[in-house]
Structures are given as structure tokens and as C-alpha cells.
């Protein structure tokens, strides 16, 4: 983990796709689909697009579909879209305007029928989004 992390500086605007990343820090604007291990969206950062990551820390704004093991939403964060997570920390002040789903992984036992309904609803939603 000694290698330098990728930084999208304030004032930078990237649009496209990022792959094979390990650590990314966003202070600028990113519209991209990203697969990484750790992603930080700083206060000045804006991120739109899908995220697949182990850890996501949001201080800035995010819009999109996020799939992450751990999600930490800082007080200044503004999130819309969808978050699928295993553990979530939501700080006081964080603006959360999105769908949140815990333990989306089908391998983890869902203990109630409502959980299954939720998953079904999600897949319906996903497919409708694809059509739209």
C-alpha cells in the first residue's frame, strides 16, 4: 500500500472510466464508473457514476449507484442514488437522499421475507433503469 494514490485535484474534471485502481481521492469533478479498493470524495469533490469499492468515504457530493463494504458519510456529504453496503456510518449533518440496502450479497442469509421483497424490488428497479 506504499504506492501513491490517485488524486483528482480540485479544478480537475474527468469524464470516462477508471479501472484497476487501488486508492482514489477526488477533490474535483468526476463522472465515471470506478472499481477500486478505497475511494475518498473530499469536500470539494463531486462524483457521479457507479462505484465498486471496499471502502468509500464521502465528504463531498455523490450521485449514482454505490456498492461498497464500508461506507462512511461525513457531516458535509450529500448523497443521492443508491448505496449497497455491509456497514455504514452516517454522521450528523450528512444529507442522504437515496436508497440504502444493507447486505445485498445473496450469500448472506436474509432472515425475513421483507428482505427478499427488498431485493426483488431492487432488481425490478434496476431493470427499469436500464430501460429508461
Amino acid at each position: 500500500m506504499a504506492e501513491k494514490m490517485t488524486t483528482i485535484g480540485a479544478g480537475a474534471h474527468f469524464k470516462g472510466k477508471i479501472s484497476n485502481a487501488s486508492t482514489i481521492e477526488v477533490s474535483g469533478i468526476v463522472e465515471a464508473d470506478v472499481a477500486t479498493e478505497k475511494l475518498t470524495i473530499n469536500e470539494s469533490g463531486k462524483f457521479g457514476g457507479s462505484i465498486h469499492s471496499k471502502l468509500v468515504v464521502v465528504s463531498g457530493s455523490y450521485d449514482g449507484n454505490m456498492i461498497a463494504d464500508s461506507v462512511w458519510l461525513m457531516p458535509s456529504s450529500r448523497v443521492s442514488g443508491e448505496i449497497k453496503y455491509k456497514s455504514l456510518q452516517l454522521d450528523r449533518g450528512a444529507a442522504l437522499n437515496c436508497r440504502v440496502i444493507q447486505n445485498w450479497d445473496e450469500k448472506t442469509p436474509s432472515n425475513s421475507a421483507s428482505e427478499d421483497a427488498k431485493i426483488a424490488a431492487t432488481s425490478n428497479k434496476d431493470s427499469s433503469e436500464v430501460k429508461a
Partner: protein
Amino acid sequence: MAEVTYISPEIMMEGTLDVTSAKGSTVVLAGHFKGEMRAIDVKLETGSTFNGKIFAHSTEVGGKMNGDIETKSLKLTSSARFEGSIFTDELAIDVGAEVSGSISKLQKS
């Protein structure tokens, strides 16, 4: 805090990167980039690969690049492998750099 956009060695980025606003202006690429890059200062480090176009004020190439560069001043270091078109007013090429393509002055717009 200096606002540098840094792209680390293992990463692959595809798309457009625009770093011409007042807040940030420098891009350092150590990884792989495909697409278009606009910035004030661009540095392609040894080991990096770039496919596409660069528009910058000053550019330093030490990696492998395929495409066009439009920049006021350009430096190709000894590890540079360049193929494409160069438009620049000030050019420096170090011993060892491999360059193929065309070189011309910037067109005044």
C-alpha cells in the same frame, strides 16, 4: 495545498480530463490514460502510457505516448517513446528518446 491530479502506476483511465480551471492545473500521469487531456502542466512519467491528445501549456513526456500533443513547450526525456504529431513552439529532446512522427510550430489562432 497544491492541487495536483496524480494518476498512479497501476491505474487505467479512459475518457476526458480537463484541468484548466484556476484551482488546479497540473497532471502527473504514472499510469495509463486513453483519451483527451487538457491542462496547464502535464507530465507523463517513465512507465506511463498515453493514447490520445494532449493540450497543455507545458508538457514533459517520459513514457510511451501515441497521439498528438499541442503545447507551448515540450520536453521529451530519454525514456520517452513517442509516435504521433507534435505542435509546439519550444522543443527539447533528450538523448535516448525515440520519436517518430511530425513536428510543427503551434498555429496561432
